[in-house]
């Protein structure tokens, strides 16, 4: 498996059941490192903010997907030049124009995950959708690729490509671009 998930430790512990691939875990201090090692996360690579670039370049040959949302995770995606930045659907996710600019330079694809949106009530959906629109606005301004997908491994939550394309279109992406970006991901698989 050459997909590498990266995630700050705290968030990773909450969603650890999803991950069966090799992991890169972002740890803040030695205590976190111990926790990561004792937990059943099968981490293969632990990194901190102080990890030198030379060490990180070992990951270059692998396909990297970063579960973003927080400032730290997004910065990490930029630093390791991740292929995908997964944006969870909640109201706390962070995204700005500077980040979009960096993602554009690295040719990173932003993946909007919408499985939480399915379970949310009307008010929560409104909040999440508003946040999505903001992410899309920045992506469009800086020409960052983005697709819509599901964030879990439940195949029943993954919607057909036509629906995902339509979702990208109603979020504000032109039809041709939505189709093109989605096809690129399918070809890569």
């Amino acid at each position: 498996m050459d997909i590498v998930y990266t995630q700050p430790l705290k968030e990773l512990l909450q969603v650890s059941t999803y991950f069966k691939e090799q992991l890169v875990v972002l740890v803040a201090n030695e205590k976190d490192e111990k926790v990561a090692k004792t937990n059943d996360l099968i981490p293969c690579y632990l990194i901190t903010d102080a990890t030198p670039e030379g060490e990180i370049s070992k990951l270059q040959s692998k396909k990297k997907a970063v579960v973003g949302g927080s400032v730290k995770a997004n910065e990490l995606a930029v630093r390791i030049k991740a292929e995908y930045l997964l944006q969870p659907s909640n109201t706390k996710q962070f995204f700005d124009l500077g980040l979009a600019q960096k993602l554009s330079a690295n040719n990173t694809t932003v993946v909007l995950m919408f499985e939480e949106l399915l379970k949310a009530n009307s008010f929560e959906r409104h909040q999440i959708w508003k946040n999505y629109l903001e992410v899309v606005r920045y992506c469009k301004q800086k020409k960052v690729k983005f697709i819509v997908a599901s964030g879990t491994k439940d195949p029943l939550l993954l919607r057909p490509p036509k629906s995902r394309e339509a979702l990208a279109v109603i979020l504000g992406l032109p039809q041709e671009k939505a189709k093109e970006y989605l096809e690129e991901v399918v070809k890569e698989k």
Partner: protein
Amino acid sequence: MKIEKVKKAIVPLSKRERKRYILFEILNAEVAEKDFYFGFWIDLLSFFGSKGLAEINPKVVLFKGNKAIVKCQRGKETELIAGTAFIEKIRNKKIIINPVLTSGTIKTLKEYAKIE
């Protein structure tokens, strides 16, 4: 006072609002026709709101087996397809609604889906 019946003026075909038909396939579970009507409507209404849904104006025209043909306003088909992505459960059965084909006539869809 005598109430006179006024005949409703017939709008000529060329001036009527255009519509689009979309063929959907229901995957994973069998759903009864009535449950589909209800589940389809409720989820779209919660996502688009009254105004949005009135603009899309979806109507289930035909339901047979696991296939359904839904009519909507022309130009709103993308919104309808996107909205169906949010239909996760009908009567507690997890389902996926797969948009198969969009057409301007119901005949094309019937032929494609082999529905008589």
